[in-house]
């Protein structure tokens, strides 16, 4: 069961989790990215590419389900304005055994960072700035290449 969503509403972690359990899964792994208040960030604005984003997320989820024989994969990404401590993204994977769920979860968040069309803009006391990509994200995504 694959589900991807891009939504301006807050992410309900309990509901996300419940949606991927079941179906014979023995383990559910999740990763949730949170807005950090680093460097005086007071808000984060997430922009995305409607249509293109969903297609990219679905392609990643389908890859992970095939590669790790998952029973479920779910990616929910928030867009719009959010505050420090709020969840930006939820990735959840379910599989019969834990290693598959854990690896696939790490894979999805690493690849999402480099392959899905989202852009972050931080609001600070002094104004706004677009976030630059981190080189470590490219390295993290590259480690999954066969």
């Amino acid at each position, binding site marked *: 069961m694959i589900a991807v969503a891009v939504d301006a509403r807050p992410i309900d972690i309990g509901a996300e989790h419940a949606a991927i359990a079941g179906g014979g899964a023995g383990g559910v792994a999740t990763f949730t990215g949170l807005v950090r208040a680093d460097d005086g960030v007071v808000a984060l604005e997430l922009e995305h*590419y409607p249509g*293109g984003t969903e297609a*990219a997320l679905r392609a990643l989820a389908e890859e992970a389900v095939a590669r790790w024989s998952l029973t479920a994969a779910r990616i929910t*990404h928030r867009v719009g304005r959010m505050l420090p401590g709020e969840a930006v*993204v939820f990735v959840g994977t379910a599989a019969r055994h834990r290693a598959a769920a854990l690896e696939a979860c790490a894979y999805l968040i690493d690849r999402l960072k480099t392959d899905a*069309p*989202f*852009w972050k803009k931080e609001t600070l006391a002094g104004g706004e700035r*677009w976030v630059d990509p981190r080189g470590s994200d490219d390295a993290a995504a590259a480690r999954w290449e066969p």
Partner: protein
Amino acid sequence: MATEILYFAWVRERIGMASETIALPDGLTTVGDLVSWLAARGGGYAAAFEDRSRLRAAIDQRFVTLDAPLGRPREVALFPPVTGG
């Protein structure tokens, strides 16, 4: 054939609009050629496209490099490196 050009993040801000519909002229072979043609308009376009190393593209919602063949797309998106997650 009309092509929808989409701009995101600071590319959108510098150009001052989120999208426009263009009849692509003849002679544009790659995505990079389209970028050069747009940049030649000057102003916000020149500012948005001044550093090609910080520019990414998608043709009909598929990520491509700037040297990819342009073809006859319905939709081209131009944007900075992504920073989601």
